């Protein structure tokens, strides 16, 4: 193969110094960082990097998406399922601006990404050159860090810094914008040095023992301690430490949707989901506990509802790696600033044996009420019309909770988060903080690359799927084994629910028509089926899961079903409505 020669010429690891161009130096750096998969879309301003990529195709797999938004959501899905940094390439101008939604999504959900964008030649900067957009300034508010490279010699150092920043502390997206001249420029490449220190950056705060002791004392004194956990547990790879912490004294624990899967769904201390469409017991009892222990979560308003009525009776222990989160929304009594992988065992060690079974039983009591009034009718509906919940229930039975569930945004997302079972961490991938429709399908493609051995099911609404439906093309071309489960209610369901409940049923532009999804899938060479009878549900889901390769299953569900319970906007969590 003729490309081999070039590759040998570009193998600087062994040599002291080699002449490389900026693009080759970039790819060499990615290899040292352990990158194997890149999602991207080429264009004029990033062509030198793509030219270099031609020679690296056996080491760096590049997935050509159909839209840059698909590329970055795929990189997010990859990062979330694998725990590694997701990498995405895009060209200047429109290519780069198409990344913005995903960058903002990754920023608010703390997803580690390195985005590489091409930029016009440095001498053209500021001249309104073809496809010139000031990407560094546009992305400043939605990146953890960004940098424009105008000289090839900067590339190894900047890339190393980018990876260090993306994955340490509270992770997040970083962006490197590389002008075309820097991509082409040759220089003496002296190797790639990973970065582990930046003078002005302190990702790992020193843990203060006094706060650990105070936290433990509060928990030891508590009669009704209650733990809330978020994605920090997963990002800190502290699942084991977290389990040990709650199990030592039997602390009931509830999750944010990004924290979901950190402990198994059926864990005896798992008391369910927090927030607007969360479970009844954890929401109500938030306003009854005496000590609230928040671990790696940031008190988002979708979780807290009205802040001035949120857990006012409780002393708050807040564990977070990001000091800016402490006291941001909820005033803490004891702030435990640090990596929870480190802080949790320190607190656990100081916990005294306590029996909280009576308190836990209170959760189970309220849960019974929710089962009766909401869960039972949702999972076993009386009429002929299928509910979203029963689809998830059957899916659980068939996957045994072992699948990665990637959701889009809307009612189906809330239903999936409420009812899907998870056995292992990094299994629930969803757009939390930004609530980005169009996230599901491309993120599922990325999740599959991040965890190739696991079953990946994208659960999408009929609306959201159509925002990034072109990514079926990516599945077709690269053979990504993603199962797409469309829960079709012929509506922009979640907005319709709000219009029904709060706008007098004035259904303003929420009625959405869809193409024949199965035919569309067929056009992309993807197998599929559509069902509207309950009798077909189990076999259709089984067919989807057993199918070798990608599959699209559309399930027609109730048109005007609502997701309950619900904490209406502007209400306190204890005002949660069961109907």
């Amino acid at each position, binding site marked *: 193969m003729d490309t081999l020669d070039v590759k040998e010429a570009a193998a600087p690891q062994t040599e002291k110094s080699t002449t490389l161009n900026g693009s080759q130096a970039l790819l060499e750096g990615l290899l040292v960082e352990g990158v194997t998969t890149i999602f991207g879309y080429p264009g004029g301003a990033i062509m030198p990097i793509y030219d270099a990529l031609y020679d690296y195709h056996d080491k760096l797999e590049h997935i050509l998406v159909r839209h840059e938004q698909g590329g970055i959501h795929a990189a997010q899905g990859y990062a979330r399922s694998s725990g590694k940094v997701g990498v995405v390439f895009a060209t200047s101008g429109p290519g780069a601006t198409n990344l913005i939604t995903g960058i903002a999504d990754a920023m608010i959900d703390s997803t580690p990404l390195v985005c590489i964008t091409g930029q016009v030649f440095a001498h053209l900067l500021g001249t309104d050159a073809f496809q010139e957009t000031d990407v560094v300034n546009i992305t*400043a*508010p939605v990146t953890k860090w960004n940098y424009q490279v105008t000289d090839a010699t900067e590339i190894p150092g900047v890339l190393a810094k980018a990876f260090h920043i993306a994955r340490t502390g509270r992770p997040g997206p970083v962006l490197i914008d590389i002008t075309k001249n820097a991509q082409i420029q040759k220089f003496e490449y002296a190797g790639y040095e990973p970065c582990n220190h*930046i003078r002005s950056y302190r990702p790992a705060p020193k843990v203060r023992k006094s706060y650990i002791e105070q936290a433990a004392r509060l928990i030891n004194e508590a009669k009704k301690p209650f733990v809330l956990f978020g994605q920090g547990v997963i990002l800190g790879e502290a699942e084991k430490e977290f389990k040990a912490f709650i199990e030592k004294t039997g602390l009931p624990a509830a999750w944010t949707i990004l924290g979901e899967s950190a402990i198994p769904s059926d864990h005896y201390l798992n008391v369910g989901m927090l927030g607007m469409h969360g479970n009844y017991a954890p929401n109500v009892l938030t306003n009854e506990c005496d000590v609230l222990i928040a671990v790696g979560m940031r008190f988002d308003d979708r979780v807290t509802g009205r802040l001035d009525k949120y857990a006012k009776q409780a002393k708050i222990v807040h564990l977070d790696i990001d*000091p*800016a989160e*402490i006291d941001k929304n909820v005033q803490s009594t004891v702030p435990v600033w640090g990596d929870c992988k480190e802080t949790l065992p320190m607190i656990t060690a100081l916990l005294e044996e306590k029996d909280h079974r009576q308190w836990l039983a209170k959760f189970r009591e309220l849960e019974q009420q929710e089962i009766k009034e909401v869960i039972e009718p949702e999972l076993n509906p009386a009429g002929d019309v299928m509910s979203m919940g029963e689809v998830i229930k059957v899916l659980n039975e068939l996957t045994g909770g072992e699948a990665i569930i990637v959701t889009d945004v809307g009612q189906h997302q809330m239903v999936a988060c409420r009812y899907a079972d998870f056995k292992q961490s990094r299994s629930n991938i969803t757009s939390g903080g930004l609530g980005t429709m169009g996230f599901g399908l491309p993120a599922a493609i990325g999740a599959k690359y991040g965890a190739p051995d696991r079953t990946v099911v994208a659960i999408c609404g009929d609306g959201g799927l159509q925002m990034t439906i072109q990514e079926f093309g990516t599945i077709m071309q690269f053979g990504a084994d993603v199962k797409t489960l469309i829960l079709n209610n012929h509506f922009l369901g979640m907005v319709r629910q709000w219009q029904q409940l709060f706008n007098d049923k004035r259904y303003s532009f929420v009625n959405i028509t869809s193409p024949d999804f199965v035919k569309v899938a067929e056009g992309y060479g993807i197998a599929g089926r559509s069902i509207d009878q309950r009798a077909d549900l189990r076999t259709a889901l089984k067919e989807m899961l057993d199918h070798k390769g990608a599959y699209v299953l559309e399930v027609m569900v109730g048109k005007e079903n609502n997701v309950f319970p619900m904490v209406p906007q502007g209400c306190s969590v204890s005002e949660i409505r069961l109907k």
Partner: protein
Amino acid sequence: MKNQASIKYAPAADSSSAPHQKKEFTISVFTENQIGLLNRIAIMFSRRKINVESLNVSPTEIEGISRFTIVITEVEDVVSKLNRQIEKQVEVLKSYYNVNEDIVWQELAMYKVPTNVISEKAKVERLLREYGAQAVAIRSDYTVFETVGHREETEGLLNALAPYGLIEFVRSARVAIIKDSEGFHAKLKEFEQHEPSQEVIENEYLDKRDDVFTM
């Protein structure tokens, strides 16, 4: 130079006991000297719809480190949260916020006035002396004076000069130095010495928690 809250910009000068009342705060940010950081910091204010009253950026005594002095009028709670968000920026080494009582601050003002008017009218000369102005450039057509002080002081000379054919006026942003404590120099030196160190600089705000909140 007296050092009290400026009358014009701190209407609630005695509001230290009222945390929900807006006050003048001076935020001092020590950063790497890096392109784009000005925008990142500016965004943090504009995003919260906070008006920046005054902004000064200059190199510090340590090479490669810049100092931002930013004056805003806000409630303390917002300022303390904002301060932590600023400090979170990768290239920010440290950020502090202070009320006027905690700092010594100055602004520099320059006034361009017709030379003939000044030389002819002794009153003007007296004015300049009264305000402690210095001549920094004297030409046949105009003279440039400078004064240094708080806003109301430079404002005073400005108002006084206005009737005498003031040609041009300019005022710098605030520069400020903390009154008590050893100030920032030691901390900066520490940063420099520890490079490349893994040590954590404690968060000032959290340090004071015990005084602020009791269990």
